[in-house]
């Protein structure tokens, strides 16, 4: 039965919990049984920043770590780049236990972890080229090698002409390009992006994210995107870890997580990305009692590849109803359709009941919002 097959993709996919499990054999970053507790200090109470963190970031992936402020994102970054030690557990980066290293050994390991920042953190006293040279100087490279590598990196991030500019003479996007070049200077295997686009306008953000995608594709660098912005995860990441109050609440493929969000925080991120508010003109007309000759208003959630394509036509044909499309918002996240349709169903309570039964049969979550005249 054709109709059923094409609609079946709208059904929930198996729970994705296993995808970012710490058992992942080819992990670039592996967090095992991590907790981070900041002890009480000078009257300030202690903070349990992270608890029971177990996940792995696959080699070569672009993995988003999304959470509200205070979810533990910053602590996580500082554990991965070795600036802090976990209270319990291990942090394995590229096969090395970062959490067990100290001093010179730690500093050597840190050279294989590049890092970009929300506020760029460039030295104001150095030109773009000299900023990029900093990690190479720290690593003890020869002057001539540094010069060649810096020229290469400036070209890679598309600002070869800004060689001698100071940060104060660069735009936000250009500064972040310098930051990216600097982070890649020592040829790290993983790039940590700590809210790297949060201080940029949408257009510049898009350009920077495109650059990161290119770098991931061409250099094979694993990218970890720490962010509070759903749009960043949606545009770039294939895997995502959702953090809330120091816990991983969901993790897996972006498409699976956001087509079938299970946790309230994931749902709220999704609502931000696709918008779940009704158009004002429609919302103001909705009443709670049916009116003679009016329509019932039903919202249908659409999740999955091509899920919503023929829904309205099929519903109208199979139930013989003149279904009105009052509002629709369908977006694509990781190749999957995600959104909602707001339908007007004429013909009284019986038609509404049949419609809801039909939608439920095909696993489309639906709710009655009210009535319009």
């Amino acid at each position, binding site marked *: 039965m054709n109709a059923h097959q094409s609609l079946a993709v709208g059904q929930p996919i198996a729970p994705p919990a296993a995808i970012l499990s710490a058992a992942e054999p080819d992990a670039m970053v592996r967090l095992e049984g991590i907790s981070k507790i900041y002890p009480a200090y000078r009257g300030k109470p202690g903070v349990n920043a992270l608890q029971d963190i177990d996940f792995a970031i696959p080699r070569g992936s672009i993995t988003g770590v999304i959470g509200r402020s205070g979810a533990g994102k910053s602590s996580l970054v500082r554990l991965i780049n070795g600036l802090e030690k976990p209270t319990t557990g291990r942090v394995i980066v590229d096969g090395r236990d970062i959490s067990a290293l100290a001093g010179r050994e730690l500093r050597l390991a840190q*050279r294989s972890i590049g*890092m970009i920042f929300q*506020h760029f953190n460039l030295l104001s006293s*150095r030109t773009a080229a000299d900023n990029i040279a*900093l*990690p190479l100087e720290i690593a003890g490279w020869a002057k001539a090698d540094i010069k060649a590598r810096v020229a290469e990196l400036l070209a890679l991030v598309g600002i070869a002409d800004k060689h001698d500019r100071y940060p104060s003479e660069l735009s936000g996007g250009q500064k972040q390009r310098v930051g990216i070049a600097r982070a890649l200077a020592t040829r790290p295997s993983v790039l940590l992006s700590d809210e790297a686009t949060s201080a940029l306008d949408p257009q510049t953000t898009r350009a920077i994210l495109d650059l990161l995608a290119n770098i991931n594709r061409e250099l094979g660098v694993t990218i970890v995107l720490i962010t509070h912005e759903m749009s960043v995860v949606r545009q770039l990441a294939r895997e995502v870890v959702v953090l809330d109050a120091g816990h991983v609440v969901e993790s897996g493929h972006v498409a699976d997580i956001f087509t079938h969000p299970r946790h309230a925080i994931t749902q709220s991120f999704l609502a931000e990305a696709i918008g779940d508010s009704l158009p004002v003109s429609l919302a103001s007309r909705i009443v709670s009692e049916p009116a003679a000759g009016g329509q019932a208003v039903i919202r249908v959630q659409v999740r999955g590849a091509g899920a919503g394509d023929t829904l309205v036509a099929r519903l109208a044909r199979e139930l013989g109803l003149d279904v009105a499309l009052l509002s629709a918002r369908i977006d694509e996240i990781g190749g999957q359709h995600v959104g909602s349709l707001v339908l007007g169903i004429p013909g009284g309570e019986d038609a509404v009941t049949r419609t809801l039964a039909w939608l439920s049969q095909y696993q489309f979550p639906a709710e009655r919002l009210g009535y319009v005249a």
Partner: protein
Amino acid sequence: MSPELINLIVQATFESLYMVGIAALLGTAFGLPLGVFLATSRKGELFAAPVINRVLGAIVNATRSTPFIILVVAIIPFTRLVAGTSIGSTAAIVPLTIASAPFIARLVEAAIREVDGGLIETASSFGASPIQIVFKVLIPEALPGLLLALTLAVVSLLGYSAMVGAVGGGGLGDLGIRYGYQRFMPEMMLAVVIVLIALVQLVQSAGDYLARRVNRRLRHR
């Protein structure tokens, strides 16, 4: 004014410049590392050593709260030990250095603390050692502030140097007191004050100029 008096002023000016110049150099040699250490040795910082930090801080405060003229007299035995004599411009360099080093240290500390902590973290995340962070991040980034601090220190030293006349240190201040005040020569007093004003203006302008030149934060195309 007679050539002899003009000659006295020229000679006193050179004495002042000599004392202040050497004391500023030595004061910086001690004050700069001390200031960097004070700025980076509290709990959780780069060279965390909270106890030493507090002890050094207390010593710095004690030195700074001792009136300079009392310091000069109090350390005469030490001055004799270091300089071989307690009289003259060279001997005066000792108390001037001891007074300026803690002053410079506090100014340096303030300038270093102005550097964005994010930059220290950035360099750390690239695997920079604490020493590399000091020389590649903290000092270059604080340089405009450091130059202004040094300028302030030199101007203050010019003021202090007027007091070392009390131990036969010579210099412009000494000349002003002995000729201008004690011998009732207002024109000598005036000349000394004018030379001092000119020196302070010169030092301040030079410091401002250098600080502006190395400051890349505010420069525009």
